[in-house]
């Protein structure tokens, strides 16, 4: 209840919107043929700071707020939004939206305050967690220390950003739920130069926490150290191999494999419509029996975690694949209703100005029984891909890519030399059937992921232990 009251204080009180006003808007939305409706209020304060060339170069502050109203009738959705949280504006939006259903009697609803059962992150405003001067000092300290790490460093660029977001969502059953979501992120990228060759390295992290996260355990400095290490490795990298080969993926961020290869294909909307390569395959084998994959929005403090999703549903730890068998999909309310199942708390939206849809939270594979060294040792000839940039998938054909940013050759069971980044391409429905060893070293990423779908971006997490895949196409130049 405490969170809900704070959220109301932040959004409704300044706008002069009362519970009775929400009831009035909802009543306007709920004509007889409307199956579901919601009103989503959002207020988001964010800032970012950039240090480059040894100076604090940029700083910006941003306030975004508004409300979106939605009415759903069968498979049809009507939606309107406004940057102005004002009763007449929202009533007008509701008028536009309810045209989606047949005209009829307005329904009456009474607002019930929903209590969040669990909260997975602190409510405090991260933007206020450090004073402005302390934020600057943190950036300067990371900059100075990072530049000292190696004489080949030419440039260091550091960014620090924080978001303090408050949401409220009212549903047609009368429930009103709220959430307060902090999110911080820091990134260090470096350019190194040696004998005229220039390379870069980059590392960052964050989560649903405040800026002290980067001070604790010297995380900011660790990002700098890691960025420099990667850049120096790249200075040595030679042409990457091309062709189908055994690939060992490192733990943590390489879990982007799961996000692209199977995650998107298991989102409820694509499966309801039968457009995914995984459609209609629940109960079938889609991975080797070593693989158990979950989507878990409940991990405290993670970038992809949510106490409730953007439809007010508490998030869950949803098993997607268990011992290689496809168990289920990730659902929002609309698709869950149409498929006759319940929402898994995966209904997310970029903002009040976008419609919610099934999205991932933190997607990862559970640990297996092999020591990571054992896995490397088992490979006669192959690639060890330790770090990745982004990825993409075609959910219909199942083809997906993800791009290695740090990789090494494995020869006779040993990691030998670094190779340039290359894109890996595979087929989602069968890549996990080729997983022949799963490591003990499950790790989640450091908190940098953003996922794009239909133009909407949301923060997500991924993770996995070290994995061996017996055959995936590596897109190097060395033919």
């Amino acid at each position: 209840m405490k969170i809900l009251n704070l959220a109301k204080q932040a959004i409704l009180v300044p706008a002069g919107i009362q519970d009775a006003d929400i009831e009035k808007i909802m009543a306007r939305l709920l004509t007889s043929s409307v199956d579901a409706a919601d009103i989503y209020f959002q207020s988001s304060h964010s800032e970012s700071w950039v240090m480059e060339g040894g100076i604090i170069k940029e700083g910006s502050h941003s306030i975004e707020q508004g409300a979106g109203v939605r009415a759903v009738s069968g498979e049809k959705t009507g939606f309107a939004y406004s940057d102005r949280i004002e009763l007449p504006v929202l009533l007008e939006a509701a008028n536009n939206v309810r045209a989606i259903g047949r005209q009829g009697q307005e329904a009456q609803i009474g607002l019930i305050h929903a209590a969040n059962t669990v909260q997975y992150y602190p409510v405090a405003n991260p933007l206020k967690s450090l004073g402005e001067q302390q934020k600057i000092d943190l950036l300067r300290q990371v900059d100075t220390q990072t530049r000292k790490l190696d004489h080949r460093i030419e440039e260091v660029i550091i960014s620090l950003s924080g978001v303090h977001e408050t949401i409220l969502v009212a549903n047609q059953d009368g429930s009103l739920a709220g959430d307060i979501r902090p999110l911080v992120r820091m990134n260090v990228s470096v350019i190194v130069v040696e004998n005229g060759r220039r390379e870069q390295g980059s590392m960052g992290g964050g989560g649903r926490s405040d800026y002290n996260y980067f001070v604790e355990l010297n995380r900011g400095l660790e990002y700098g150290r890691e960025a420099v290490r990667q850049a120096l490795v790249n200075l040595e990298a030679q042409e990457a191999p091309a062709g189908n080969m055994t690939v060992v993926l490192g733990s943590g961020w390489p879990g982007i494999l799961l996000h692209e290869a199977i995650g998107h294909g298991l989102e409820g909307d694509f499966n309801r419509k039968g457009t995914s390569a995984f459609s209609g395959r629940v109960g079938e084998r889609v991975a080797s029996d070593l693989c158990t994959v979950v989507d878990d929005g409940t991990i405290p403090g993670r970038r992809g975690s949510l106490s409730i999703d953007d439809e007010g549903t508490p998030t869950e730890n949803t098993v997607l694949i268990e011992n290689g068998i496809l168990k289920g999909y990730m659902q929002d309310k609309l698709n869950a209703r149409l498929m006759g199942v319940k929402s898994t708390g995966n209904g997310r939206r970029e903002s009040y100005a976008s419609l919610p849809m099934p999205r991932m939270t933190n997607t990862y594979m559970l640990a297996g029984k092999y020591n990571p060294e054992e896995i490397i040792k088992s490979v006669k000839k192959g690639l060890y891909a330790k770090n990745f940039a982004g990825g993409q998938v075609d959910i219909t054909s199942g083809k997906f890519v993800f791009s290695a940013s740090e990789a090494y050759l494995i020869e006779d069971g040993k990691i030998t030399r670094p190779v340039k980044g290359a894109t890996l391409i595979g087929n989602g429905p069968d890549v996990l059937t080729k997983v022949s060893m799963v490591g003990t070293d499950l790790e989640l990423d450091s908190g940098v992921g953003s996922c794009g779908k239909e133009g909407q971006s949301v923060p997500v997490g991924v993770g996995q232990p070290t994995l061996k895949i017996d055959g995936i196409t590596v897109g190097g130049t060395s033919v």
Partner: protein
Amino acid sequence: MQNQQEVNRLKDIVQNLLDEAKQQGATAAEAGLSQENGLSVSVRLGDVETIEHHCSQGLGITVYFGQRKGSASTTDLSVESIKETVSAACSIARYTSEDEYAGLPEKALLATSFPDLDVNHPWAITADEAIALAIECEDAARHYDAEITNSEGASVNTHQGIHVLGNSLGFLHGSLSTRHSLSCSVLAQRGESMQRDYWYTVARNANNLEAAVEVGQKAAQRTLRRLEGRSLSTRQCPVLYSAEIASGLLSSFIGAISGGNLYRKSSFLLDALDTQVFPGFVHIHEQPHLIGASGSSAYDSEGVATHTRDLVTDGILRSYVLGTYSARKLGLHSTGNAGGVRNLTIDPGVLDFDGLLKQMDTGLLVTELMGQGVNILTGDYSRGAAGFWVEKGQIQYPVEEITIAGNLKDMLRNIVAVGNDVDYRGNVRTGSILVERMSIAGQ
């Protein structure tokens, strides 16, 4: 007329912002405001899926206190919010560093004439009419062939935006623009093979959109031709980038000659000015004043006048792409490219698409690229691809689950031909581009 009144109202708000910044002690300031209205409808399997009414606004301000700057933005245009936004920007400027290169553009470079570029054509279409149009489009795709088995639907979008930009040097201008589109995406199935593809049309003026039936049919054709794709063995061969994706190659080139990457020395084209970057037959220019085109504008995102100009002639790089800050860092002047290039055009060659296939003879036609595997610092390029295998100038079979790789520096220099099959839809206008040789990785 009502529109012009609204532009004037928003110009007043921007002037208030600038005045407020001065009031709060800023020595210079720049402010922008945009307001967008629109309607999007989507249909699927012959019925309405979503109707979305768009209405959004936002303003942003950058203030300078001498050489220190701060920025702030908000979606709330109320008087109190304007004050708070300006003070948020000012308070940030207390903590940023003196940067000798920071500041507004030189006054002499600001746009002073504002030709009508014919980019504002509101489309008086109702939700019901838009639904009917989308259904017509999707029907054309669904009924094109029995192997079209499912659909992701068709959608119609119409948007009008008002953008106002002002700065404390006296620049204050507002412009209206529209953008309308129609798109369709369907699935085809044959045995185990399921594929999806799409087509879209976009224009400033709805009269210039492709016919709905044509869009639907193209979506169906593009989907069907992908069925039963296979991988290739790993090899090196010529690669033909089809016109609709060739723009990506030119965008990577633009990234490498953009000020931000140049002054950070994170470009594979450092110090390439006046050197041979492309073969001699390549000419690339920017045409920001094209009538009715998608990238047309008389000024850039800082108010600097845009100019029709050559970037590459005879394959030689003639100019960088610079905004005010990056230009000063490089000791140069802004080229009117804050916010990017506008209507980038590569001169078409003599060959049409079939002519390019014949010239390639045997190689890979790429029609889709996946992932972001492009490193602008080193030029290293490795991306997922799908397309068609070509022998003796004839398409043989669809190809998927392969990558194409090379280094952009070599790829640009080894362009063999540019087609006259220009895709005029986007901000980069190019025909298909044939690259002499790349590495293909597959089974």
